[in-house]
């Protein structure tokens, strides 16, 4: 996201044939719709034209602003009389969007702060003034073309952020203490040879103790807490030996200091905590994404809808609409409930629900589903199912069960940790008992040795081994435009043998393109494109894209769900579906079509086809060469799917699948022991993405789908799929190497510790060097990417 923002594009004047705001094909210098022209005027009016130079992605198509929602309900009053509102902002593309929204809001009188987080997409506004101003501010954002969703304020203070902060604080304290104690310890170690005075040494040890004890008490809390919880439930985890080791080291060292002994382990204890905290922080940071996305899902389903009541139109969250109530859906708006159309003729784009690329015409009596977008004319819909009962709700439930199945995944590090902790405990105990019974040590030196064993075996390198690799792998993928969201994604994606693709929007671009017409069509094209320029229907947009110089014709009438008509020189011109153009039967060849009819001439048929991503064939070939099984699962018609499958040489494909059928197919394959990567973009893929071992979604996909997917890739190229798999496999190899190294290190270090030969100096060197080796090994992953680059 940010990497792209850096490559700020040079000033880009409105291209001929592109909307100056969203870049969609339109007549030269004209706006594609009123929404975009409003947004453009607003941006210019605020003096924020710079946005058009900063942005790296086209702006979202500015939808006509939603009808007034009562946002003041969501406002929190602040103690100093100001008001605060948090909303989720949808459709953000890059850092320029963030800049635009913040600056547009800060320019408003009364606004004291407007902060938008690119990671959480949460916008927090604070202003002096009444709560009623909220709607005005939100409307500015909506008019810029971004969707705003209400946030449940109670979820804002989720433990994620708090936990991250606590770890950072603990890390700071531990780092400070570790550096200072190490300073003192190095003096003591060099003093052993050079005859440092006993009193100086004791002073240094004393100061170390003064720093270490409060620092460990503070920085060790996350570990102590987790260890205590585990023990209380009769379990043991990695934190138990850590806590015991650190505590024992401090207690033993204190005893040593009291009797003015030569060795103290304060430095080892605090350095250990510091390294462990670093690993833990990296890990939590990676997991943070997953937690945040769950909140977004919640907000999406709670979108306000316009309810028609006896008292007029009322905005209400979709979850509070009762079945049987009537909903008003404006053109360009997303439908919030499942229901029957009562009034209005329009077409709805359900591509994200069904995978079908063409809008469906709807008329009174037709069924529409929550999540589809109403394209042409206002509709009145009678709700038949709301909230959890809708198709979206059903998918959400499917998703939840998918998430549960995924949470059962046991990470490699956890598998190791499970048997590591008991082994360490037993070893320490045995060496204590051994020295007491067999050796002639007093109990004090036996405890000292046991503490040394615990310290040297502390899973320092082990705790860093996996997070370090993960962070390097994520940043490497980020550079290739792949955003990894789930912490376990790379591990799950490391042994994939089956790759399943959705068709529309995944293998294909997801937009219809005009099939080059014959000579007759070429002649007609300018006239037809001029008509089409007046419509937002995807097929009309494709016509305009094929003939960008067309000047929009005047007096074009739109007949929702049917087509366009215009008074031409020789009578009425009609552009639309077969029936509208007076053609009795339409041919079926897997292509979408628009008919153009003129008085006295044969109707002409324009054909459209969704084109494949430019590198789809190469990527499919590469994946096949790697010996992976490839499958296409699509909700689209069989002929459309067959065509794509043939073009790519994939013989295993299913068409016309429901979201549930997709998920079932994946579950069945999983039962056969297959490891599956699912690539999809639609809402109908969401559950399948959740059930697959790992999942990828293009950044053009729907919010929910992107939330479910383990990783999101940007750009037109499908090459992200092999890249993701390659990095996942490589990082898993490095993780194994790192864990293996940690174990080998222990095999050498533990006997030394048991033999009582580990002085604080050796402990410090061994621990730091093993941690460094592990981190250095992880960095290799990033380096190899740089070398591979031309």
């Amino acid at each position, binding site marked *: 996201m940010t990497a792209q923002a850096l490559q*700020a594009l040079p000033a880009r004047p409105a291209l001929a044939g592109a909307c100056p705001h969203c870049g969609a094909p339109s007549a030269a210098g004209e706006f594609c719709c009123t929404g975009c022209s409003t947004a453009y005027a607003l941006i210019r009016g605020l003096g924020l034209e710079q946005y058009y130079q900063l942005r790296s992605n086209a702006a979202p198509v500015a939808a006509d602003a939603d009808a007034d929602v009562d946002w003041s309900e969501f406002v929190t009053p602040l103690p100093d009389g100001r008001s605060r509102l948090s909303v989720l902002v949808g459709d953000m593309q890059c*850092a320029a969007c*963030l*800049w635009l929204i913040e600056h547009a809001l800060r*320019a408003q009188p009364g606004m004291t702060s407007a902060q938008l*987080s690119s990671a959480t997409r949460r916008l927090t506004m604070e202003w002096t003034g009444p709560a009623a101003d909220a709607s005005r501010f939100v409307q500015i954002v909506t008019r810029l073309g971004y969707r705003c969703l209400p946030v449940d304020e109670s979820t804002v203070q989720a433990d994620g952020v708090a936990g991250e902060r606590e770890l950072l604080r603990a890390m700071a304290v531990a780092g*400070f203490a570790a*550096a200072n104690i190490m300073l003192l310890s190095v003096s003591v170690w060099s003093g052993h040879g050079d005859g440092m005075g006993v009193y*100086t040494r004791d002073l240094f040890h004393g100061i170390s103790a003064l720093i270490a004890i409060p620092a460990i008490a503070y920085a060790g809390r996350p570990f102590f807490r987790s260890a205590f919880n585990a023990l209380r439930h009769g379990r043991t985890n990695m934190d138990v030996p850590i806590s015991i080791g650190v505590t024992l080291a401090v207690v033993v060292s204190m005893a040593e200091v009291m009797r003015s002994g030569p060795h103290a382990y304060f430095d080892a204890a605090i350095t250990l905590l510091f390294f462990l905290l670093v690993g833990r922080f990296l890990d939590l940071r990676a997991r943070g994404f997953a937690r945040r996305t769950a909140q977004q899902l919640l907000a999406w389903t709670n979108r306000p809808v316009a309810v028609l009541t006896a008292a007029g139109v009322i905005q209400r969250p979709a979850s509070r609409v009762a079945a049987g109530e009537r909903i008003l859906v404006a053109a360009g708006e997303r439908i919030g409930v499942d229901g029957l159309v009562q009034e209005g003729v329009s077409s709805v784009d359900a591509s994200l629900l069904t995978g079908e690329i063409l809008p469906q015409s709807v008329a009174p009596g037709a069924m529409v589903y929550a999540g589809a977008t109403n394209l042409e004319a206002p509709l009145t819909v009678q709700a038949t199912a709301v909230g959890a009962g809708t198709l979206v709700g059903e998918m959400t439930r499917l998703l939840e069960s998918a998430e549960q199945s995924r949470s059962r995944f046991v990470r490699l590090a956890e598998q190791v940790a499970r048997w590591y902790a008991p082994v360490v405990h037993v070893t320490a105990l045995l060496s204590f008992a051994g020295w007491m019974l067999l050796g002639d040590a007093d109990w004090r030196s036996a405890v000292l040795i046991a503490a040394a064993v615990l310290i040297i075996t502390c899973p320092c390198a082990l705790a860093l081994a996996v997070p370090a690799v993960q962070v390097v792998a994520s940043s490497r993928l980020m550079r290739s435009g792949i955003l990894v969201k789930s912490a376990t994604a790379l591990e799950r994606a490391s042994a994939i043998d089956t790759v399943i693709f959705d068709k529309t929007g995944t293998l294909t671009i997801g937009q219809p393109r005009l099939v080059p017409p014959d000579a007759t069509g070429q002649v007609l094209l300018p006239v037809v494109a001029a008509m089409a320029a007046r419509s937002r229907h995807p097929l009309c947009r494709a016509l305009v894209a094929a003939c960008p110089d067309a000047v929009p014709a005047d007096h074009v009438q739109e007949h929702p769900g049917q087509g366009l008509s215009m008074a031409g020189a020789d009578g009425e011109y009609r552009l639309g579906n077969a029936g509208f153009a007076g053609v009795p039967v339409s041919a079926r060849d897997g292509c979408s079509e628009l008919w153009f009819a003129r008085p006295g001439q044969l109707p002409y048929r324009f054909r459209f086809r969704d084109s494949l991503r430019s590198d789809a064939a190469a990527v499919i070939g590469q994946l096949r060469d790697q010996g992976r099984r490839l499958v296409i699962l699509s909700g689209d018609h069989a002929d459309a799917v067959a065509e794509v499958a043939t073009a790519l040489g994939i013989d295993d494909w299913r068409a016309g699948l429901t979201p549930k059928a997709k998920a079932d197919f994946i579950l069945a394959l999983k039962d056969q022991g297959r490891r599956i990567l699912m690539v999809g973009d639609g809402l109908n893929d969401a559950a399948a993405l959740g059930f697959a071992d790992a999942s990828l979604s293009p950044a053009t996909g729907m919010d929910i789908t992107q939330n479910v997917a383990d990783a999101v890739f940007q750009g037109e190229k499908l090459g992200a799929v092999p890249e993701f798999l390659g990095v996942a496999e490589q990082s898993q190899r490095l993780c194994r190497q790192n864990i293996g190294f940690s174990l080998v290190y222990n095999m050498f270090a533990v006997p030394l510790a048991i033999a009582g030969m580990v002085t604080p100096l050796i402990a410090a060197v061994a621990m730091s060097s093993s941690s460094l080796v592990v981190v250095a090994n992880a960095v290799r992953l990033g380096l190899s990417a740089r070398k591979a680059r031309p």
Partner: protein
Amino acid sequence: MTILLLLIPAALLLGLIGVWAFLWAIGNGQFNDLDAEGARVLFDDADARLRERRQP
């Protein structure tokens, strides 16, 4: 060696100042959104100009 009595407290004090500053930064939300701040610094800030435009 008596200089240590000065140097050690001095070192600790400097370190403590650093930790305090870091803890303050965390509490102040400076680390909340690492991605955006990196990009935000590159934008020429239009705020000053906007304020001028609003006031006359």
